[in-house]
């Protein structure tokens, strides 16, 4: 479903991502881990089209998307969330998801409200609110919600665009234990029951080992190792990188 081939990203002299490849199969849940500054978000930005790679290529569903801008990749079925929550704070949860659904339904030039079009988008928004468990808070402004609910809203927005590949950048960042538990359960449901293909960046190892089918470890821009959670847990290289990073 997603083939990243030897991508490199340079910012001036800094090589943020150095010759990294990754192959994600349909239905897989892939976790990307690595110490701070390892290049995980940069890697995501290239996959989702925030900027093109300096070298290498990205193939999504058999189509080379290396040079496509972000919005066209969304059209092809990529949805993403951000490390720092990116939402529409002064709109309600429902409006956040509705706008996402309307855009995905190709209504950005629809300048008068229409019943049929509105129903289509409303139904998607309602379905996704139910899926992520925010129906009870539909009419609340996202800006007044707890951090965990804001992050969940952001996932809901991505889902409202009916993606086939979901890219989540540290979905549990800044969350307490209870919130982390809930969002982990949500991602697990999205993966197991709703059959989304998911790539997620995550720092919390409990979450990673609980969810992932495969793990990619980045360190200082390079691919350190790739494997199943078991293989990763046993790897000395990973332990060294993390201990090195922490110390």
């Amino acid at each position, binding site marked *: 479903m997603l083939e990243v081939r030897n991508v490199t990203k340079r910012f001036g002299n800094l090589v943020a991502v150095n010759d990294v490849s990754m192959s994600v199969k349909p239905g897989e849940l892939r976790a990307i881990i690595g110490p701070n500054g390892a290049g995980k978000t940069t890697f995501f930005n290239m996959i989702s089209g925030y900027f093109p790679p300096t070298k290498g290529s990205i193939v999504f569903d058999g189509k080379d998307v290396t040079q496509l801008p972000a919005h066209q990749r969304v059209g092809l079925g990529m949805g993403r969330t*951000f490390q720092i929550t990116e939402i529409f*704070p002064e709109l309600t949860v429902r409006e956040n998801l509705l706008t*996402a659904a309307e855009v*995905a339904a190709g209504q950005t030039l629809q300048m*008068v409200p229409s019943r049929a079009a509105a129903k289509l988008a409303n139904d998607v928004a309602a379905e996704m609110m139910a899926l992520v468990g925010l129906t009870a808070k539909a009419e609340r*402004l996202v800006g007044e919600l707890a951090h965990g609910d804001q992050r969940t809203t952001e996932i809901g927005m991505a889902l409202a665009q009916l993606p086939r590949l979901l890219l989540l950048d540290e979905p549990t960042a800044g969350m307490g234990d209870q919130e982390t538990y809930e969002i982990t359960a949500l991602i697990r449901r999205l993966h197991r029951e709703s059959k989304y293909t998911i790539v997620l960046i995550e720092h919390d190892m409990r979450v990673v080992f609980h969810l992932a089918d495969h793990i990619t470890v980045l360190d200082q821009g390079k691919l350190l190792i790739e494997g199943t959670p078991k293989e990763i847990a046993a790897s000395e290289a990973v332990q060294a990188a993390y201990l090195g990073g922490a110390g």
Partner: protein
Amino acid sequence: MSTDVTIAAVAAARRPAVPRWVTLVVIWALLIAAPYWLPLLGGYTALAGRVLVFGLAAMGLNLLLGFTGVLSFGHAAYFGLGAYGAGLTLRYLVHSTPLAMLAGTLLGGLAGTLFGLLIVRRRGVYFAMCTIAFGQLWYYLAYSWNDFTGGFDGLRDFHREPIGFGPLTLDISEGGTRFYFFLLAIFAVAVTLLGLLVRSPFGHTLRAIRENERRARFLAIPVERQIWLSFSISCFFTALAGTLYALLNNFADPLALHYSLSGYFVVMCVMGGMRTFWGPLLGATVFVMLQDYISSMTVNWMSFVGTIFVLVVLFFPRGLLGLRRQRGET
């Protein structure tokens, strides 16, 4: 901290104390009855006409300012082009009010559409600066091209013509109530269109851009194109208001193009509440009334309006209408 306070205020505003239809009935009743109650307060019908004209201009600007989050300090250009377009048409081309309105609206709207193409990639202050600069261009053109536009003295020698509907004729050449209702009808149509626009999926994308441009981009909203359309549409509405201004006064002057007027439009939006649909109309009402009362007492009326503006911004940061609803909640 402060964002929490803002969010609480918005949350309150979004749950209005009175249902929307009540607001609508009150607004339209007040507008329809204006020729009857305004004189009782010492006003006159032409003043109500000015409120409609500036209200429409400000509401048009607010599509861009309040609903897209993009600041233009040059909307007087499109207002003025509308006014001159209508005036010049009446004076040199045809004696037809509808054609004059059409010509003025197209002139201002298309100028905005083309100019918008050049500046949609600019943001914030740079965008605002470009809009001012472009606006002043037209001001100097109208100011210097004496023979054609009447220069500093303004464009005179035209007047609104009766409008024929087959066998019927609507004679609006007298000021009075009939002309006010003509203005109100145009205003009603325009504002209804604006209302539909902000509730449409297109309108939702504008709101999304205002709230978070980066997120909007990653939802696949073509941000530049939407801002351009918002700018363009907003210019058309403001230009339409400009044509009505020329009809109202039977006169178009370079000051209708001047950046200070652009500033007043922004003041009207901010004072009335730019996150609300009707806020700019309220702002225009306050502005026009103040201008009328105070300018009869002192030439320095703008410093009074300025002071009141500062007070409003200090005490009701979300504008007068924003306040009304905030109170309703607590």
